[in-house]
């Protein structure tokens, strides 16, 4: 790979006492990529994204965002990225417009620009109908849309999204996807984690899979598929493969991380 990466990590590691949540991860994400970061629960996805956005300090390793070392240039990096963290990072007792205007000014926009962009974003996200409603009274989907709006108000070069589609209905998800596609069209890089593999498959051009803190696969969907197929015998028990259909992302994911549960395990009071 001969590109200058938007995001790169070297031996990124995070320990919580005895537990190694992220273990020597080396990531490279090219500019303009729509990058999906996948993994089972507890694999280290959120920990990694927190480290990439400055919300958590790595135990060791190095993070470079847009060629800048995050450890030594945190403010310069943060100025160029947008983040929708797991908890959405909202201020509940502001209205949507007040929060967006606040967010814009915190990223250095002047009052007029911040207010103008806030109004545009509220319209785009279909949140403009109830201007006096406090964020705390928004539905979960509305809060996700608002968090996304706040993350893009300053026109970031990279957008980090931790589970952006979790708990979001189809209409809100459509709005969010439209926003993300616009970001990609203008050359931004998007780094997202999600459990909704169908959406990731449709949106993302490149993927990485983390399992038990280690990066176990990285590349385009085709590269991952080829890798899995190369490792799997032709007489697979998978129906789609034997019938000549391509493996879905879900199948690729399950083969890489393993998804079985002991079939004989039962719950005493439900059996």
């Amino acid at each position: 790979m001969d590109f200058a990466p938007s995001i790169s990590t070297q031996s990124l590691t995070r320990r919580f006492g005895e537990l190694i949540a992220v273990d020597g991860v080396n990531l490279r994400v090219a500019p303009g990529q729509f990058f999906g970061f996948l993994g089972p629960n507890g694999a280290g996805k959120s920990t990694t994204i927190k480290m990439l956005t400055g919300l958590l300090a790595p135990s060791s390793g190095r993070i470079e965002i847009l060629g800048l070392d995050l450890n030594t240039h945190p403010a310069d990096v943060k100025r160029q990225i947008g983040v929708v963290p797991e908890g959405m990072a909202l201020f509940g007792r502001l209205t949507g417009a007040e929060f967006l205007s606040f967010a814009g000014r915190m990223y250095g926009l002047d009052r007029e620009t911040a207010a103008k962009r806030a109004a545009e974003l509220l319209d785009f996200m279909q949140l403009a109908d109830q201007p006096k409603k406090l964020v705390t009274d928004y539905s979960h989907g509305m809060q996700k849309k608002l968090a996304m709006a706040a993350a893009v108000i300053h026109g970031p070069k990279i957008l980090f999204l931790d589970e952006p589609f979790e708990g979001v209905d189809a209409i809100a998800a459509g709005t969010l996807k439209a926003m993300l596609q616009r970001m990609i069209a203008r050359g931004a890089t998007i780094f997202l984690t999600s459990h909704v593999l169908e959406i990731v498959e449709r949106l993302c051009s490149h993927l990485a899979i983390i399992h038990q803190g280690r990066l176990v696969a990285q590349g385009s969907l085709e590269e991952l598929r080829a890798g899995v197929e190369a490792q799997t015998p032709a007489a697979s028990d998978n129906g789609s493969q034997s019938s000549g259909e391509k493996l879905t992302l879900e199948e690729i994911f399950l083969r890489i991380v393993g998804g079985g549960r002991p079939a004989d395990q039962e719950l005493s009071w439900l059996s």
Partner: protein
Amino acid sequence: MKSAAVRSQLIAIAELRWRMFVNGLRTRRGKTELASRIIVTSIFAIGGFGAFAMAIGMSWFFVSDGRPEFLAIPLWGVFLFWQFFPVMATAFTNNPDSSELLRFPLTYRAYLLVRLAYGYFDPASALGSVGLLGVLIGVTGARPTLFPWTLLVLAAFALFNLVLMQMIFAWIERWLAQRRTREIFGVLCILFMLSFQLIGPIAGRLSKGPHPELRRDLQIAAEVQAVLPPGLATDAIAQVSQGRLVGGFTSLLFLTMLTLFVGFLLHVRIRAQFRGENLNEAPAPRKVKQARSLQLGWHLPGFSQPVAAVFEKEMRYLGRSGPMLLTLIMPIFMLLIFRFGAMNALRHSNSFARTPDMAFPGAAAYSLLVLTNLVYNSFGGDGGGMQFFYASPIQFRHILLGKNLTHAGVLLFNAAFAWIAVTYLYGAPDIAVTVATLAGLLFAAPLNFAAGNLLSLYSPKKRDFSTFGRQNVSQTTVLASFGMQIVIVGLGTAIFAVAHYYNDLWIAALLFLILAAISIPVYVLTLRRLDRLAVERRETLLAELCRA
């Protein structure tokens, strides 16, 4: 649900609280919290011991002297302390929110019991109970045969106080939760304050010459207080001590009925909460889109956009927090109480001859005190928004500067309002008093802000702006802020005493300005250290504030 199951749930909740306490000790912060709690409790215990000793002495004297009806004095003291202390000093109030238990199949009875039990673990309740124990010992010491009856009456009185405190908090929260009820409540508060105006003229009229009607008025007051809870408790003990059992039982019955009535009002509120009441202020969805004008953020001359944005955000948060606003206007309220309440009667005596001079400094000092909750836990109200601060490029020194500007704004507003109130109530404060007080604030505020900023990063606690008195406070913060206030108030008092000694209050102004010349650089230096500290404390802050 059977009572055995309810008991099992209550035991599980008690075990949960115990496990949370024990698990909390695994961290260094948890251990610091425990040490702070022990120190704070010890300080309260000293005050409690004083009240306890006084209650024993008074009760013993009144009963031995054959005047048990005067037990009303300690009982009114306990009653007023129990009900007013949690409102006036919310920093020391520590009632965890029990609504998180509603997800479990808890019966209403169990939920109510948990709520009352949580309410009992509060300094006001603990000290109130100690005061009542003092009364019990005093009465028993004077007349041992009265022990069982006094125990019963005082237990009923304690229950009344506990239920009343919970009921007041629950209803104030309800009234402050929505704009319309908040406005009605605000008007009622103002009317209540204005009603104090009537006391002044009455007291003034009574203080001039002999007043045969004074005796009658006092008699009426005594009769009125006799039908109120402290009076009923007193009467129940007094009647039985004089052999009038029926009268005693009747008073206890009335007290029980009052407790039941207050309990019913509490039940109405708790029941609504139990059923999942949602008092949000969201207007009904409108089908027609409203025409909107561009909403520009606030401009703060001389400060950067981020600082102005934080200032605006903090002001909006305050404006939308009824409970917090109520706390912040308490200094004005206290002035009215001091002017027209019991202290007024003492102000003509020698020891209070200078009270009017000290009214403005006193109100200003109290204005600083009521800010404690905000200043020493600056990020408490931000909750998940804390992640936003960490993800944004702004430095923490600017965030805290914006917050401190808000605190300073509230302080100045309160001080200005206090000055107007003092002028109206006592006459305009002397120019030297005014300057000395402002210089005092110039010294005290930066010192408080510097300590508050550090504590906000070291011991954060999530705060709910919409609740009243059910905040989760850090004991370390309570201890540190308590210590800081003692130092500041002690210094201020000493400086005013020196100035009074030399009969020149300009000395106080000068001394405060000298101290301010030290405290302001201390504040600036501390502010510069905050960025590094915020990075070091990142995980603790996010873990504490962003949890659901």
